[in-house]
C-alpha cells in the first residue's frame, strides 16, 4: 500500500486538511441503520425513565413507600440516563469513531465527576445531619411530618 499522499486526487472532505489521514467511511445504508437504531434506543430508554418517574409518583400517592425501594428506582433512572448519554456521545457525536488517544483525552478528565459527585453530595448530607443535631428548632420546623397524605381523601376521584 502506498503512503504517498496526492492532494490533487483527494476528493474527500478533508482535502483541505492534508494532515488528517484517517477518514470515517460509513456507507449510507449502514449509517441510516445505525441512526435509526440509536433513535429507537433513546426513545425507549426515555419512555422507561418516564414510566419509572410516574411509578415513584404513584407510590407516594398511595402511602409511604420504602425509602430503599425509591432509592433503587432513582438509581435505575440514573443508570438509564448514563446509557442515553453514551449513545448520544458515541453515535451522534461520533466520538466512538475517533482514535483511542483522542477519546481518552475527553473521557479521562470527565472521570473527575465521579469524585465531584461523591464529595459534594456527601458534604451536603453531612451539613444536613450536623444542622439537625445542633439546631433542634431547624429540625422540628423543616423535617417532613409523617402525615397521611391525600390518600384518605383521594378515592372520591
Amino acid at each position: 500500500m502506498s503512503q504517498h499522499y496526492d492532494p490533487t486526487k483527494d476528493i474527500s472532505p478533508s482535502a483541505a486538511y492534508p494532515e488528517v489521514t484517517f477518514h470515517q467511511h460509513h456507507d449510507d445504508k449502514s449509517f441510516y441503520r445505525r441512526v435509526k437504531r440509536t433513535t429507537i434506543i433513546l426513545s425507549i430508554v426515555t419512555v422507561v425513565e418516564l414510566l419509572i418517574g410516574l411509578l415513584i409518583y404513584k407510590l407516594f400517592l398511595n402511602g409511604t413507600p420504602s425509602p430503599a425501594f425509591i432509592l433503587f428506582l432513582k438509581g435505575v433512572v440514573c443508570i438509564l440516563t448514563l446509557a442515553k448519554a453514551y449513545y448520544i456521545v458515541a453515535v451522534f457525536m461520533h466520538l466512538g469513531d475517533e482514535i483511542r488517544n483522542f477519546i481518552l483525552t475527553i473521557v479521562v478528565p470527565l472521570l473527575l465527576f465521579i469524585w465531584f459527585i461523591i464529595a459534594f453530595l456527601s458534604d451536603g448530607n453531612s451539613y444536613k445531619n450536623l444542622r439537625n443535631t445542633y439546631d433542634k428548632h431547624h429540625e422540628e420546623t423543616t423535617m417532613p411530618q409523617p402525615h397521611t397524605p391525600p390518600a384518605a381523601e383521594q378515592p372520591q376521584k
Partner: protein
Amino acid sequence: MAHEATVNTHRTKWWSGGKSPFNIEYGKVMMWYFLMSDAFTFGAFLISYGTIRFSHNYWPDPNVVFNAFPGAGHANLPLAFVSVMTFILIISSVTMVLAVHAGHNRDKKGVEKWLIWTIIGGLAFLSCQAWEWHHLITGEHATLIDGKIELIGQTTKRNPWGELVAGQEVVAALQNTDTHVLAKLVEEHHLSTQTHAELMKAPKEQLIQLLSSSSDFHVRKPGPVAFGGFFYEITGFHGFHVFSGVIINIIMLLMTRANVFERKGHYLMIEKAGLYWHFVDLVWVFVFLCFYLI
C-alpha cells in the same frame, strides 16, 4: 526494506508536525475541548444543586411542581410536558445527524433541509421552555405565609411547594386570609357559579365553608427558596445554549445557501455545529434527570 523504514519513521513521529496526531481537523478538536469545559460548567451547576438538595430535610417533589400542560388548565399531568420537550430535543438531534451526514456526501439540498428541521426543533423547544417558565412564575398557588394564605408563584425568592398543611390548620389560616384571595380560590376551584364580584360580597364564612369542604383545595407551606434559583439558573443556562445553537444553525444554513462550503470543497463546519447541538441535547438529558425525574 527502505520502504518499511520510511513507514516506521512516519509512524513514530506523531508529534513532529505536519499531521494531526488525533487524525481530526484542528477546529473539531477544539470544539471537543470547549464542550468538555462546558460539561464541567454544567456539572458544577448540577452538583451544587445536588449539594443544596442533600442539605435539606425537605425538597419539593418534581411531579407536584411540573404537572401542567398547555391548554389543559388545572389538570394534573405530571411529567407530560417535559417529556414532549425531551422528545423534541432528541428528534432535533437526529435531524442534525442527518444534516452532518448530508454534508459528508456534499449534498447541499440535504444539508439545507435537515438544518431547517433542526432549527424548527430548537425553536419549538425554546417556546416550550418559555411557556413553562411563564407558567411557573405567574402561577398562583395557595401558600401558608405568616398564618394566612397567599397566592404565590415560583420565583427565585419564593417557593410555593412546601409540605401540605393539615386540615385544621387550613381552616384557621382561611380565617386570617383576605376576602379577595378567598374569592379567587373559590373561583379557581370552580366551587361556586358566582362571579368574582359576587363572591367578594358574599359573607366570608360562606367562602371558608366552600373551600374547607372541597377535596381539591390544598394549601402548602413555603418550600426551599433555593429550588427556584437553581431551576431558573440551570434551565436558563441550558436554554441559552439552545438559543445560541439555533443561531449557529441559522448561520450554517445561510452559509450553505451562499455556497460557502461548496466553494471550500467540504462541509466540516456543519460537523462542528452538529457537535455543539448534540451537546445541548446531552446536557438536557442530565437536566431532565436532576430536575424532573429524581
